């Protein structure tokens, strides 16, 4: 196919004026629509592009966007029926940055409602399918983004979002690259919040280079989000090179290779560790003892924060609305009961419980203290290790028809490897291994995105 190009090749050709953009975009749309019928990855497709797409760093590169990131004039629902019909009158800051650099927003991708899930089966709309095996889940919660990146053989990158692993998980399951930056590196302005102290906008792409490129564009301080870090802009693609860092050591946390992790996955990750060893990168086994406590601490914090965030949805100003004929309490309850899916209700109620007087200290406050200990443990390891390496997910993607047999607590447990670094706000990347749906997870210290990109690039380009 004429436009079966990598992002890097596309940008080169656009720079040299070798691509007729109108022809490219119409071919892209035709292919996207065909693929989307098959995979149900996007909920909305934007049909036209406005403005000058010949300037900036992206030259009209197609970018899909997770449904929970606001795009001006494009319906944005965070995968929830309660927001159906909501058309943001503004762009999220990351979208403004993409547009400033001539990225072409091509649509909104399906996800678990508000990010509540590991398989994208908690979507209020369509459940995206895994392009590697369409009977299986794409992973969650940024499942639509990973599915379309994997399924479409054209230059394209997707903006995802992770609270507890929602970029890494679908990237592993669909065998693409998912980069979750340090908490606060990318502005959350315009993100429909799940849990404010955990949410991170990141990138899903076919290659490590693609994710590094888009991160360079969306990263940076934003006065509209006071939790963004004041850090000088950096071109992360500079870390995409074959040179091997000297005298570094990777940590291999033994808790991440326990018997609970599928043996085929463990073996494959060990192959990668041994490959890195063969090119001069040493490793050492280490321990993250707080791993088992990180999961409940994460869920308590995430549910508590989400229960407050979801309080604002009441059917008055946007999204699902009805005739307000009755008493306000009844009206709000009616809209909320109709608009929220089962997992959203579950988390609102549990989150409200964890914040109630009499329980707050035992759950919420205690979880916050456990988070401190999780962060401290990582910080100690990063004094010694360049990065940590492990499997991304403990399991292979389940069949869609089998997901309903998984209980909520079993589902939460499948986030055991992605939750701890998310709770600690560390940057992480999932890079495909040679076995389909098995991702290798690399985690580094706060603001060390360069390190994860470097190791992932070396693994991606292994001989």
């Amino acid at each position, binding site marked *: 196919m004429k436009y079966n190009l990598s992002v890097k090749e596309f940008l080169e050709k656009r720079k040299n004026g070798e691509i007729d953009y109108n022809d490219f975009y119409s071919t892209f749309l035709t292919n996207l629509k065909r693929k989307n019928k098959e995979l149900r990855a996007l909920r909305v497709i934007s049909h036209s592009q406005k403005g000058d797409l010949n300037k900036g760093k992206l030259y009209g590169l197609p970018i899909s966007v997770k449904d929970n990131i606001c795009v001006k004039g494009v319906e944005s629902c965070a995968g929830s029926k309660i927001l159906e019909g909501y058309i943001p009158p503004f762009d999220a800051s990351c979208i403004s940055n993409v547009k400033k650099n001539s990225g072409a927003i091509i649509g909104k991708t399906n996800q678990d409602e508000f990010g509540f899930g590991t398989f994208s089966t908690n979507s209020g709309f369509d459940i995206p399918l895994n392009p590697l095996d369409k009977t299986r889940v794409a992973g969650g919660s940024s499942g639509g983004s990973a599915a379309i990146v994997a399924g479409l053989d054209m230059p394209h990158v997707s903006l995802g979002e992770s609270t507890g692993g929602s970029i890494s998980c679908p990237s592993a399951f669909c065998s693409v690259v998912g980069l979750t930056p340090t908490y*606060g590196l990318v502005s959350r302005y315009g993100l429909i919040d799940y849990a404010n102290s955990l949410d991170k906008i990141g990138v899903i792409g076919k290659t490590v280079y693609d994710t590094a490129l888009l991160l360079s564009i969306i990263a940076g301080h934003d006065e509209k989000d006071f939790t963004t870090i004041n850090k000088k802009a950096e071109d992360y693609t500079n870390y995409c090179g074959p040179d091997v860092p000297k005298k570094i050591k990777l940590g291999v946390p033994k808790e991440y290779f326990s018997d609970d992790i599928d043996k085929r996955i463990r073996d494959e990750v060990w192959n990668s560790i041994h490959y890195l060893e063969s090119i001069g990168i040493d490793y050492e086994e280490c321990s993250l003892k707080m791993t088992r406590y990180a999961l409940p601490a994460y869920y308590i914090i995430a549910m508590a924060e989400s229960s407050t965030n979801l309080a604002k949805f009441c059917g008055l100003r946007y999204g699902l609305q009805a005739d307000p004929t009755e008493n306000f309490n*009844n009206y709000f309850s*009616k809209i909320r009961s109709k608009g929220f899916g089962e997992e959203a*209700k579950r988390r609102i109620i549990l989150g409200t419980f964890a914040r109630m007087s009499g329980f707050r200290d035992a759950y919420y406050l205690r979880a916050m203290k456990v988070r401190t200990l999780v962060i401290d443990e990582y910080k100690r390891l990063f004094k010694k290790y360049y990065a940590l390496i492990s499997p991304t997910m403990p399991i292979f993607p389940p069949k869609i028809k089998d997901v309903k047999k998984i209980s909520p*607590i079993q589902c939460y447990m499948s986030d055991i490897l992605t939750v701890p670094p998310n709770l600690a706000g560390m940057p992480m990347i999932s890079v495909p291994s040679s076995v389909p749906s098995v991702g290798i997870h690399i985690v580094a210290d706060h603001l060390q995105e360069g390190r994860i990109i470097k190791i992932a690039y070396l693994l991606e380009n292994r001989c």
Partner: protein
Amino acid sequence: MKKIITKDDVKHISDLARINLTEKELMKFSSEFVEILDAFRIIDEVDVKDVEPSFHPLNIRNVFRDDNVKIFSADDILSNAKKKEKGFILGPKVG
């Protein structure tokens, strides 16, 4: 052993959160919540004496920006509300 959360608790909390549960949902959630909260209680094993809570993963500091008013057009703000009157959103009766 005393149940961490009862069916009546779940009903009370869902009322507070403005969510009406069907009898079936109430039964299902009540039994699931016992299992979930029980699994969460392993954090009781952690010694958190003298540990400060982390409200954010990084030590963020308060930042200030100039107090400049930026006007968001009222039409834009109201564009998603279906029931409007004279520049206001029409809501349900209070009380």
